[in-house]
């Protein structure tokens, strides 16, 4: 089936904001997040005509592309060991900074789990399917990630 580019653009316009939000939480950097979203949209573009659920495909592609890039770029990267304790107030740059710092304390996979579970509101089974993990592993990672974020930054 031939793809109508206008249909893809309509889809991309509708999904781009949510994809960028997820990407920003994953990457912790706006420019990296924009790059990740564009790379994701490009992958969706190539397959768009054959996708039953392009929104789900885009979200899964975003996370997998993030994880793939992280593996390539820094296999030895470690999460931050210590982050300052700060209270969460307001919705401005301080909140973004705090959340970003808290997420940076996690491994890339744990970050992906947190984003899918708590931003995308997916069940543990759905997250497991998207990341190629078991549901039990997702639950464990979720609990561990939340605990770490609470301890390190978000109080």
């Amino acid at each position, binding site marked *: 089936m031939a793809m109508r580019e206008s249909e893809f653009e309509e889809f*991309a316009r509708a999904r781009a904001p949510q994809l*960028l939000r997820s990407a920003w939480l994953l990457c912790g950097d706006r420019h990296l997040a*924009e790059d990740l979203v*564009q790379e994701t949209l*490009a992958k969706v573009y190539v397959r768009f005509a054959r996708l039953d659920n392009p929104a789900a495909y885009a979200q899964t592609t975003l996370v997998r592309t993030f994880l793939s890039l992280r593996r390539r770029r820094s296999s030895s990267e470690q999460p931050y060991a210590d982050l300052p304790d700060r209270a969460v107030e307001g919705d401005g740059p301080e909140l973004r900074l705090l959340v970003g710092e808290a997420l940076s304390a996690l491994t890339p996979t744990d970050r992906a789990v947190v984003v899918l579970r708590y931003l995308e509101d997916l069940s543990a089974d759905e997250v497991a399917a998207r990341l190629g993990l078991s549901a039990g592993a997702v639950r464990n990672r979720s609990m561990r990630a939340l605990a770490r974020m609470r301890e390190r930054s978000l109080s």
Partner: protein
Amino acid sequence: VNEQEMSTLLARAADAVPVDVESLVAGGVARGRAARRRRRAGAGVAGALGVAAVVGAAVVLVPHGGSSVVVEPAGQPGVAGSTASASAGSSRSALTKPIPSSVLDEPHATYPAAPDAALTLHNEAIHAALAQLLPAGTMGPILTDEQYPARDQGNHRAQFFLYDGALVTFIIDPAKGSETCESFAAAADPAAGYSSCRTVGDTQVMTESQPRAGLNAAMVWHHGYEITVISYDNAPATTRNPALDGKKLKTVSDTPPLDVPTLVAVASSDAWFE
């Protein structure tokens, strides 16, 4: 912070990130077009083999940290029988002469929307012409492995061969209005080894040199055609196995045997047209 509060916090933080929707969409479309073009240039010509085959080697021209697919070959095919040793000649030295920067900096000139020259040569003749255009080296015949299907129909040509033991891809397709040199360049990151779109006479040129991916490439828009030539530093895979994504092909040289100026010169040749 419980789970519900975490959801709220993440949403509040993420909602505050400024979003330039049009820029994201434009970038996605441009990269998507480039990816589709790459696939046509590689696995696209494989037809039923599907896009994952992408010449079985490093996928080319992936913009900005894109996912270069590199797979471990199931076996080393070795160098196919050497049939055409390119010899040095006057035409070669002229072709491989560096392009003056003053010429490269010219603004975009006229560019035909449809072919304005006949693609007169078929694959074997193109292969023979390539042997004359390329620097002296050991050049194998056109590969016949199912992963590297030659195409020789209408205004489409594609062939894969070994040069000094490493894979080379040569493709000619009619240019598509939606896949211009400028659109590729707009989607590509110079830091990743991509050039801008440059005009050389009546030709538009975009090049790529990615040491990490082990390839040099030239894409040329000329006479209403897109001519793509890619030189890899590795031997071709002999089996298609997308599951091996992430593993690296065995390299046969430190760098691709053909450098970018040579690829540009070959791709810009008028040898294929009447």
